[in-house]
């Protein structure tokens, strides 16, 4: 059967709006160095590399070939995985499968993006069908605005509910020196007040109703690297390896018009597959911390329902009760999440890295205040694609 695999190292660059001091290869190299240092390994210890980003965001074809000198890939097995927004988790899963197969002991997963180098929306629109969809589509923001509107309509959620998610993400980011957005002005102000300030602000530009600037994620330059190792070796590298308990994904839809806007069925299905594999019957009780790929605020209300943390329409209550804050029952996005940093190719991989950090107890100022047995990490992209990776303290059976 397959081998058991753990995350043993994680590194990222400081996520910034623009890193003009480095080109893409150099950015990748930075993250790789930090991850290797974190695990106290050298590039010689790495048996294979998996890398991903979204091609048209940097306009580079065959990135795995182009970045070989910087990623450490020269004379190593290298593979590129790309699945849009879910790239980071797809890369993590690919690295995981490399090790679980028994063919490679230590595998480096790299995700990166230099969003500053292109017109992100322009590139995203090309994800959609050139004949049927592209001429009409307004990019990622418009698509998400439709979902938000439907959710508000179906469950009576308000702009304030959406803003409460944004507030949580931005407050959490203040503990994370690597995050892109640090809204220092929010420090010390109670969440309720912050929500009112944000919703009431005239400078908070409306993008596509109900979405405003505050509801969205930034465009970021950043890279991250995660090292996966096989049982028998993982324990020697990390004092507390973050074992992969289960992983699953669903990429069900092809056309934007086919997506069921009522519920996020792909994240529901992927989550159920993971919970089944890991024997989880009460997610809210059993999961200690989540790093969810929430590209915008309302997802933080709705998708936690689809995952199964609460019933339909109950998302806002979880938020307002503080269940998902740092000192709540199940903190979500102690890192500040995607709304605080979004170097797209890295973003989903960072969820895995951050989840691993929590399990390992090494998240510093953003460490949740309890022993983390299970960390739930998700990726999102394209037509509501969902990737899940569950990490934990216990070596799986």
């Amino acid at each position, binding site marked *: 059967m397959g081998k058991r695999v753990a995350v043993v190292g994680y590194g990222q660059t400081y996520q910034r709006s623009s890193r003009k001091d480095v080109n893409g290869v150099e950015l990748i190299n930075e993250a790789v160095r930090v991850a290797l240092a974190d695990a106290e390994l050298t590039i010689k210890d790495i048996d294979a590399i998996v890398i991903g980003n979204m091609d048209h965001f940097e306009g580079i074809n065959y990135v795995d070939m182009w970045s070989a*000198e910087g990623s450490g890939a020269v004379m190593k097995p290298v593979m590129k995985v790309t699945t849009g*927004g879910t790239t980071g988790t797809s890369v993590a899963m690919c690295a995981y499968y490399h090790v679980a*197969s028994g063919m490679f002991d230590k595998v480096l997963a790299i995700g990166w993006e230099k969003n500053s180098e292109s017109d992100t929306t322009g590139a995203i629109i090309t994800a959609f069908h050139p004949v049927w969809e592209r001429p009409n589509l307004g990019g990622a923001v418009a698509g998400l605005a439709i979902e938000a509107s439907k959710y508000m309509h179906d469950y009576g959620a308000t702009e304030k509910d959406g803003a409460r998610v944004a507030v949580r993400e931005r407050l959490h980011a203040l503990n994370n020196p690597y995050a892109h957005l640090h809204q220092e002005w929010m420090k010390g102000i109670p969440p309720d007040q912050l929500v009112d300030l944000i919703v009431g602000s005239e400078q908070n530009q409306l993008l596509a109703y109900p979405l405003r600037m505050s509801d969205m994620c930034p465009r970021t330059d950043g890279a991250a690297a995660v090292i996966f190792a096989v049982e028998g070796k993982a324990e020697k590298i990390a004092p507390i390896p973050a074992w992969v308990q289960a992983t699953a994904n*669903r990429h069900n839809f*092809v056309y934007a018009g086919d997506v069921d806007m009522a519920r996020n069925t792909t994240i529901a299905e992927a989550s159920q597959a993971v919970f089944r594999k890991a024997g989880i019957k009460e997610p809210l009780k059993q999961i200690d911390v989540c790093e969810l790929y929430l590209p915008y605020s309302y997802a933080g209300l709705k998708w936690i329902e689809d995952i199964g943390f609460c019933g339909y329409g109950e998302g806002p209550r979880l938020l307002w009760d503080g269940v998902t804050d740092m000192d709540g029952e199940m903190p979500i996005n102690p890192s500040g999440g995607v709304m605080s940093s979004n170097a797209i190719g890295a973003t989903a991989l960072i969820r895995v890295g951050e989840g691993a950090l929590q399990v390992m107890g090494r998240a510093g100022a953003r460490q949740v205040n309890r022993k983390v047995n299970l960390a739930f990490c998700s990726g999102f992209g394209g037509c509501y694609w969902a990737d899940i990776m569950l990490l934990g303290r216990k070596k799986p059976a």
Partner: protein
Amino acid sequence: MENIAIVGVGQTVCARRREETFEQLVFEAATKALADAGAEIGDIDNVVTVSNDFWDGRTTSSMAVQEAAGGWHKDISTVEGDGAFGAFYGVMRILSGSFDTALVVGHIKGSEGVMNLITNAMFDPIYQRSLGIDATAAAALQARIYMQMSGATERDFARVSVKNHGQAMKNPFAQLPMKLTLKDVLESRPIAEPLKLLDCSPISDGAAAVVLSNRRGLKRFKKDPVWIRGVGHCTDAFNLGYRDLARSRSLGEAAKKAYKMAKIKDPLKELDVAELYDAYSYMELMWYEGLGLAPEGEGKQLIREGATALGGVLPVNPSGGVLSGHPVIVAGLIRLIEATLQVRGEADKRQVKGAKTALAQGINGPCGQAHCVFIVGA
């Protein structure tokens, strides 16, 4: 390595231009592979698609084929690179214990883009792209360096072209079956010296798929398994001027791993047939050497002696190879499929008699920067 088998294969006919969309080509290849395996999509536990955003002219172009590839309600991922690497990922996913069976499907519509611009985009945007360099001009630079090192001549390259286009006449899937003479090749239109038209592979549209299974999954399928005996992949440096372009060390490394797994010590003797990635004629000779079939610089001997012709010691590219049809991204997967058909004895007119052990190669990146080598057997 636990035994993983190829139990189904499907390929579309390669053509300069197919009228179908690439989703349709993926569906065609996937359904063919399933039919070949005597299975249905429900027998597939997970899917790996292989595609490339630049060639498809779409960001996240893999999104377009999720349904056509049978990804509905399944775990699915995408490798961006040659199909052989995608097949390797499919193998690892099964070995992980998470899945018993996998479908790997790749596609390309070379006709829908401008190959020179798309391959120009694989070069460095700061230092190389504005020179207008593309895959063919880069290959020409490599060809000349290889000639200098090995003493191989344009005539030797032409021998590869004659052999492969001639073999393509026996392959109903090939795009360019042609009965050629050395003179035809040598006098064909110059493209990027020393490469001439008939030294270069064509632009192609096509898709291909394989169904993989471990021992436990075999019962779902009707086809006799062809076992993956060994596999390896490896990447060289990107900086063209700093690679030894005359020698393919990453191919050597990939082959070494595959041979070790397959317990092959003398490949020229122990292999019955090989399907290699001859994107340009000279490459076939370089790959002979990288694979250890000939000593360094002596690839030309094999082609001069007819050792790699259909009746020779080790027939290479009985399918006609990539010179006869080059669906980028798919071509390595097709090599694997052809190798599988050979081992099964199902290669019809292009069958190498008694073939029991076959090698298939995929390449990625400029001038064969990365290689993936499979050994399959009965």
